[in-house]
């Protein structure tokens, strides 16, 4: 018979998993609304306005529509792969949140129990996140390949090449942070940035590389070549409809949140901030700023050409990130 404390701990972990998953699943609702509103206002439009005040209920209407639409599977598609591809692409980004810390430990009022705001503090958290988000590319490859359509296949292949290319500079940029904090654990990294010693001050180049590479990793403009409407119709998900399509969309939004979260944790001091607000509020504020920044960039920049994408990845970002590691090592010694 396990002890009471152990059971309580396990229950807390399960509770945290459920809460985090629910939040992640519901995040695309406000995010799609936000993205459409920001897009509209940048283009001096109003955006969704008819469903609810200022269109806040529009995502729910879209969700209902996506749920009840017909799920079409192309006749010549590889049916099994076609079915599981959206799930393969969705699971890794959700799994990556298992090691993301959201704030300082808080004490629950009635139970008097100290609760940590992360599911697991892994020894190799950064490595785990980088590794598991790399798996997300399989959803895109399989989705593209199983559709048996040339646009989808081209989108899948482009995405593969793009994600492999940009994973390198992204990891190397993260290594700079790891070098100055001496830990792979995200909690330790954030704790090392207390008192305004944010890593952005020590690693500006690293941050730039990380940010650009994460833009490419989550397939957002200016690097959204896998779903380039101009040349590929819609890219890897051109044959998808209904809920499977929305899984891809959900993945995209959660990946954007993950990229913002990582940028905040690694370079912007995580939940550290002036003490008048709880740590988790600071964290959410910083992440929201980053999400806004991602959307802002999306409606500012045009899309890169494929050769430009590869040039940026291999000829600019990779040498720069190696250089960054080199200088960081130099200063540490």
């Amino acid at each position, binding site marked *: 018979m396990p002890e009471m404390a152990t059971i309580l701990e396990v229950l807390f972990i399960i509770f945290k998993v459920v809460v985090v998953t629910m939040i992640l699943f519901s995040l695309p609702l406000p995010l799609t609304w936000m993205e459409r509103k*920001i897009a*509209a*206002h*940048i*283009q*001096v*439009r*109003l955006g969704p*306005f*008819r469903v609810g005040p200022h269109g806040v209920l529009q995502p729910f209407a879209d969700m209902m529509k996506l749920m009840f639409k017909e799920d079409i599977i192309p006749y010549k598609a590889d049916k099994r792969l076609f079915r599981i591809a959206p799930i393969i692409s969705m699971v890794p980004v959700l799994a990556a949140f298992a090691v993301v810390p959201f704030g300082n430990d808080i004490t629950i009022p009635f139970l008097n129990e100290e609760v940590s705001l992360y599911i697991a503090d892994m020894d190799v958290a950064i490595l785990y996140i980088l590794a598991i988000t790399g798996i997300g590319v399989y959803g895109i490859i399989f989705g593209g390949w199983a559709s048996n359509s040339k646009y989808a296949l081209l989108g899948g292949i482009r995405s593969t090449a793009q994600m492999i290319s940009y994973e390198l500079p992204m990891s190397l940029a993260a290594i700079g942070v790891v070098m100055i904090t001496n830990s792979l654990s995200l909690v330790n990294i954030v704790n090392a940035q207390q008192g305004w010693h944010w890593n952005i001050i020590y690693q500006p180049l690293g941050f730039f590389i990380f940010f650009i590479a994460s833009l490419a990793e989550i397939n957002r403009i200016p690097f959204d070549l896998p779903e380039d409407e101009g040349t590929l119709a819609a890219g890897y998900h051109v044959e998808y409809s209904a809920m499977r399509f929305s899984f891809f969309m959900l993945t995209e939004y959660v990946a954007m949140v993950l990229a913002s979260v990582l940028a905040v944790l690694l370079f912007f001091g995580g939940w550290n901030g002036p003490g008048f607000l709880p740590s988790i509020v600071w964290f959410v504020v910083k992440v929201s700023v980053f999400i806004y920044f991602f959307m*802002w*960039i999306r*409606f*500012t*920049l045009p899309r890169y050409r494929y050769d430009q994408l590869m040039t940026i990845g291999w000829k600019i970002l990779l040498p720069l990130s190696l250089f960054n590691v080199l200088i960081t090592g130099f200063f540490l010694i």
Partner: protein
Amino acid sequence: MSDGYILEKRKESAVETFFNRIFFIDFIKGLSLTLKYNLSRSITLRYPDEEKWIPYKRFRGQHTLNRDEYGRELCVGCELCAKSCPTDCITVIPMEDSAGRGIADRVARVWEVNLTRCMFCGLCEDACPTEALKLGREYELSCFSLSNAVMDKDRILIAGQGEPLDLEATGAEPKGWMKVSLDSIDYITPLDFKKGDRVPANYEGGVNAAASLERTEDGIRVVPDLSKTKKWW
């Protein structure tokens, strides 16, 4: 917006180019521009639910045939409008009528304009010797049947059966613009003519008025509220 177009790009020195590359100057310029637009007011009209655009006086919308201050038809059926029309969309058939219906003995028996062909150039308006024909401010011309797009005299002649109108109240000019009789119209109209709330002829226009969308048995009407207007752009 003061930023205008850059007609000729200034030649950059190598140092400047390097500086721009390193600090992403172009990137920051682009971002600040979009941020400015993001914070600026949106130009979208929430038509037809809440707002409606009231055009300027000079706007060329649907035709109206006017009367003089005693309620006589100004049109003398001279067919100049039909002759001047570049798209041949106006049909005029004159007739003799000495009962005082018009300002002359000659009036139009048939006056039709086919709005599907009309391009609202205003040449007919210019050609009219008696200023009977005016292009009004009406622009909500969608209809369910193409036959409704052919406007005949009954639908565009301003109402007022012989009796002089109260010029002080309407602020109408001596000739023209009294009251449009559009009882038989079944297309979507912004002005509820039955209620009599319409845009006065001398109203300057060019504003964005609050409006409400009314669903009636006759169809949908967008009714503007001229007391709540704001300049648009």
